[in-house]
């Protein structure tokens, strides 16, 4: 897909002015947060499970070579085939080769962020194989030929009217004047259109939420059941998974599953959690005859031993973006590649380079909500700060920002000057804004005040207040 991460600032400006997007985001912002809060409050052990989840993933990463080899051996002992792929190109080529080996003309797909990461659909189309997205959210964005804007709710940027428009434009064999009185009408139509595609597909491609070394199983988690139909009906099932998805045992998987749905959708457990182990067995009446796993590295092994290793614990629940004020304001497309929000701001520079994605770690207020809700306790703000430092060190920061930072540092290193400047600044702004209590516009800060008001400062500076309270024995 086209990478537009270098244009993040412009993307964000456009997103803030997009009324349809803002309506959709307003709808989404409250739902996920409230549902997660309810699910977490109902499980007293949630915090301890987070600790254990983190330890399991840290244990895996410290022994990743062992667990990958054990996993691959278990897949092979179950009759499956593992394809080790270093790059996106290797993975795409391998998928096409498998499809060609069975003369495939269409491939159904379950939702897979790795497939997005490697740009699989465009590559399949170029090879003459029609990819059919079957997750409803992925289906609509495939019809609209746009990338997902969220890692678990790919069409979160759309409203009902957008669905109706796309369905009318695509499902031409249905009566043009049909009505869509409720959401269910849309879902029923998609179900019947896609059911025919499921039955006709030669290959089914899914991602994996986890891989299990003990049994050689791949795990998918869905609510629709589309992933299950994708991996059950065609004669070939291809799993695309990155190397950090492996966990040791079914017990370890259960700990992570207890965290995943609660953090993602606020469900206690998703509707379908399915463990697939190799191809159809003797006596089975359904299931694919071939089972392939594309085990993709694509830059992840190089994150081990660096300040970004913790990012490999991520289980793609999307809690960080659901709770992020920046994501909530601009949506996922502004981030310009596959992974948006805080996890994307950390992962994207590691996968496509800080030169291209350097803006993303800057798109944060460092409010810390992402880390506080992350089920794997990934220190996302700390890692965004690492990227900012690297960007600065490599002189990728624009000169105006470098000058501003330099000026700030010069003042901040001189306490007398800092105290004077903050006291004068606060006094002036406080007096000017006394009447309204806030500023709708400020000189040199038009970009900032364009989207929000600046509160007028009140009372004394932080340092003055701290000193006073300390004198009074209150701090």
């Amino acid at each position, binding site marked *: 897909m086209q990478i537009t991460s270098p244009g993040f600032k412009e993307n964000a400006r456009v997103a803030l002015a997009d009324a349809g997007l803002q309506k959709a985001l307003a*709808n989404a912002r409250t739902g*996920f947060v409230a549902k997660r809060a309810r699910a977490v409050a109902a*499980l*007293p*052990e949630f915090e301890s*499970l987070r600790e*254990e989840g983190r330890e399991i993933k840290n244990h895996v990463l410290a*022994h*990743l*070579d*062992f667990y*990958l080899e054990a996993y691959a051996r*278990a897949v092979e*002992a*179950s009759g499956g*085939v*593992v*394809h*080790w792929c*270093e790059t996106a190109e290797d993975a795409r080529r391998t998928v096409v080769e498998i499809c060609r080996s069975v003369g495939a003309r269409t491939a159904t797909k379950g939702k897979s962020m790795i497939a997005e990461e490697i740009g699989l659909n465009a590559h399949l189309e170029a090879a003459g194989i029609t990819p059919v997205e079957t*997750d409803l959210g992925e289906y*609509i964005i495939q019809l609209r030929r746009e990338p997902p804007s969220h890692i678990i*709710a*790919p*069409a*979160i940027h759309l409203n009902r009217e957008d669905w109706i428009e796309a369905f009318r434009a695509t499902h031409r064999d249905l009566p043009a004047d049909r009505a869509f009185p409720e*959401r*269910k009408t849309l*879902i*029923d139509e998609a*179900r019947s259109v896609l*059911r025919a595609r*499921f*039955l006709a597909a030669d290959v089914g491609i899914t991602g994996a939420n986890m891989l299990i070394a*003990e*049994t050689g199983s791949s795990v998918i988690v869905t*609510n*629709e*059941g589309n992933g299950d*139909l994708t991996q059950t*009906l065609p004669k070939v099932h291809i799993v695309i998974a990155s*190397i950090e998805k492996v966990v*040791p*045992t079914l*017990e370890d998987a*259960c700990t992570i*599953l207890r965290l995943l749905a609660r953090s993602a959708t606020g469900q*206690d457990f998703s*509707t*379908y959690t*399915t*463990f697939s182990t190799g191809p159809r*067995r003797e006596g*089975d*009446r*359904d*299931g694919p005859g071939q089972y392939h796993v594309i085990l993709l590295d694509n830059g992840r*092994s190089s994150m*081990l*031993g660096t300040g970004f290793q913790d990012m490999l614990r991520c289980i793609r629940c999307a809690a960080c973006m659901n709770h992020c004020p920046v994501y909530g304001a601009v949506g996922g497309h502004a981030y310009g590649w596959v992974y948006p929000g805080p996890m994307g701001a950390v992962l994207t520079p590691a996968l496509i380079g800080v030169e291209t994605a350097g803006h993303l770690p800057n798109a944060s207020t460092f409010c810390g909500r992402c880390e506080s809700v992350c089920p794997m306790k990934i220190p996302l703000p700390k890692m965004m700060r690492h990227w900012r430092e690297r960007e600065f060190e490599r002189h990728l920061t624009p000169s105006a920002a470098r000058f501003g930072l330099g000026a700030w540092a010069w003042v901040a290193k001189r306490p007398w000057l800092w105290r004077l400047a903050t006291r004068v600044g606060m006094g002036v702004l406080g007096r000017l804004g006394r009447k309204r209590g806030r500023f709708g516009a400020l000189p040199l800060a038009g970009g900032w005040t364009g989207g929000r008001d600046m509160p007028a400062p009140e009372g004394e500076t932080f340092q003055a207040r701290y000193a006073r309270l300390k004198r009074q024995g209150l701090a």
Partner: protein
Amino acid sequence: MVASEADAKARILGRIRRGLRRGPLPESVAAGLVERLRAHPRNLIPARSRLPRADQVALWRANIEREHATVADALDRAEIPRLVAAYLAQANLPPAIRIAPDPDLASLPWAERPMLAIGFGRAEAEDAVSVTPCFAAVAETGTMVFPSGPDHPTTLNLMPGTQIVVLRQSRIVGTYEDAWDLLRAERAAPWDGPTVVRFMPRTVMLVTGPSRSADIEQTIELGAHGPRRVHVILLRDELLETEPG
């Protein structure tokens, strides 16, 4: 694996080891990890399902009903065909069912319901209703466990608009871990994999209610790609000290 993929494997493992600043794991460490796989120790398990038996069954039921499945009780297995027919009539569904080729289900007195068209096997595109067994059910979240096999084709859980599940109450367990242990105990066979014992069938589906989607405006609608309705017939095959009130 073709040669280029073997090279890719060696390079990926090499980069991992360089990142971790070590070579291949020493024999003793690797043996410890193999032992961890074979022993599969349990992690922290939420206390919510550690309950007296009757309460555990009640918890399962409350959870699966909250997830939009319906539950009917059968006091005797001979009642099951009648309960199936009654459900179809009440839900206004055609009296035709595809039954999993499971010996327990096949031996039910279906002949007593002559109006019911029955077939055994995997699901086909035109099947509207399936009847399946249930290996185990998990009280913690209401989840039902469906291992695939000749007796229980996976398509029956996915393609028909309605799935009727026959669950024996004695197969309700507290947690997912309890269900895995049942599978390990009942399906173990020698294996060439890292744990030397194999028990996983081609697929195990953990199902918690009917299919749904929230992809349109983040609002949940039932009946996406899988069943719109999941109806459980709970066979009361164990005596409980105190029935939940």
